[in-house]
């Protein structure tokens, strides 16, 4: 992994911080893959209250990384820091570094709008635009970004992304019906298609199945595994089975008594669930709390 060139001062700070050291690391994979995104001493605040403390994480290209932990451990907040959505909440701010390939996400010169176009996001509750058709929902990203496209190109883009979201066959006859008329699971896959349409390199998913029934959940999980070949996925879930089913790597977060969520353990999903290194991880995955 390479650190992009930055001012010497913050670089020294990074070296001094020695990332990853405090966190129990499971055995590294044989051939380390490229890193799509990583955080260094990332902290998040709501007003004066700190929600996330000093998280160092790296997300591998083309892998699914799950972030698990009990409610209130800051996992969703952490996720929202990765595409600078966190700061859209009044009073919220973040500190530390997030690197997206070689883009400093929190550099003052970096436009959050640009970051968000490179990092897609799927939310807890399906939120298709209710006044838009299925087609327009998928086309919304390119249109909002002001892409110049012919009608034909847009048709292709919509079809391609609906196929990527495994929704094409179900909606190809009702492309111009309201997106809100679909079932919950279909709506969530529509939201995935919408997020994919701007070709993000990373897709963030914030408990994407928590509002869905088991069958719809199964379809989304299938989709997540499929998509991981083409886009780096970070998925927040408090469903441990889901994490073990879909992810290659898992990060476990926990809020300490001070209410600040910190990274407890990060490693290969299999290792973390079978041989957790940290007692707290073991306690959580065996259901002793949370």
């Amino acid at each position: 992994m390479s650190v992009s060139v930055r001012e010497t001062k913050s670089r020294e700070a990074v070296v001094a911080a020695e990332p990853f050291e405090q966190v129990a690391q499971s055995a590294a994979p044989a051939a380390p893959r490229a890193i799509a995104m990583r955080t260094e001493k990332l902290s998040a605040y709501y007003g004066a209250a700190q929600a996330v403390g000093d998280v160092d994480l790296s997300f591998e290209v083309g892998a699914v990384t799950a972030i698990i932990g009990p409610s209130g451990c800051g996992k969703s907040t952490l996720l929202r820091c990765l595409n600078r959505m966190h700061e859209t909440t009044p009073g919220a701010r973040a500190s530390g570094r997030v690197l997206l390939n070689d883009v400093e996400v929190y550099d003052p010169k970096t436009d959050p709008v640009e970051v968000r176009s490179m990092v897609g996001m799927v939310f807890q509750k399906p939120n298709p635009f209710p006044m838009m058709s299925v087609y327009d929902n998928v086309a919304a990203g390119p249109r909002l970004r002001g892409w110049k496209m012919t009608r034909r190109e847009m048709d292709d883009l919509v079809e391609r992304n609906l196929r990527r979201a495994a929704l094409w066959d179900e909606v190809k006859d009702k492309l111009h019906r309201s997106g809100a008329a679909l079932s919950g699971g279909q709506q969530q896959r529509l939201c995935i298609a919408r997020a994919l349409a701007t070709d993000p390199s990373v897709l963030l998913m914030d408990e994407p199945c928590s509002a869905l029934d088991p069958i719809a959940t199964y379809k989304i999980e299938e989709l997540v595994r499929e998509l991981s070949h083409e886009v780096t996925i970070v998925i927040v879930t408090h469903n441990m089975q889901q994490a073990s089913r879909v992810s290659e790597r898992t990060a476990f977060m926990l809020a300490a008594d001070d209410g600040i969520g910190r990274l407890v353990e990060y490693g290969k999903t299999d290792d973390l669930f079978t041989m957790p290194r940290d007692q707290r991880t073991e306690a959580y995955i065996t259901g002793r709390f949370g």
Partner: protein
Amino acid sequence: MSGSVPARHRVAVRRKIAGGVVLALLMLGTLLAVALLVTILGYVIFRGLPALNIDFFTQRPLPVGETGGGVAPALIGTLILAAVSGAIAIPIGIAAAIFVVEYQSGRFAAPVRFAAELIAGLPSIVIGVFVWAFLVRGVVGHYAAIAGGVALALIMIPIVARTVEEVLRLVPHSLREAALALGAPKWKVILAIVLPTARAGVITASVLALARSAGETAPLLLTALGNDFFSTDLLRPIGALPLQIYRYAISPYDDWHTKAWGASLVLVIVIGAIGLALRVVARQRVR
């Protein structure tokens, strides 16, 4: 579970009686409100209908003693004033509402809302006096349609702003987040997602404000003045249905009284038609 069976029965009976009394009072109130509306509308139709004929809609008012004539200049004037005041007030009101709702972290949101409340509380005659002093005596130099339009706009702005504000707050936050997360700049999120989602409500708010201002008389007396001749010149005095009603109603002539009722009916129809038309437009959305 406590109390003997007869005691619990007594409580149940008392509760039923209390429920019945409250329901009866509520129904009485509703009935009175509806009855009042029906009475007013019915009486306006009853008194106004005899005045209506083709001439009433197409001719200008005639001097006392001559039979016939109509209120066409006032009708056109009311439509022009509505267009002018709407063109001024609706964009400003919507902009103010967007500012208050979408940029509420800004320090000016609270003062803006407070100012809108203050203007909404001003008697309309005071707004008329203000516009008279500022535009009629000042900038324009004489009574003019544009001054009437501005006066009506000042009445409409706080109505539009407050109503649209409520409507924008109903747009789910998750839609704003979804659009932001797609990499849309905030202004585009507002224009392309928030406003279209709230479209029906925004149109309703505009209609409410137009309807309210179309019935205003006091501020027009001091600004648009009234005009018995056809005029579309914004820099000349212009007629308006409320002014026409006022002039006819305070006159001592029976014929003019009938015409005042007729003009009242026309005004009610105009307001109803504006509302209906915009509601039809608002309903056209994705099925």
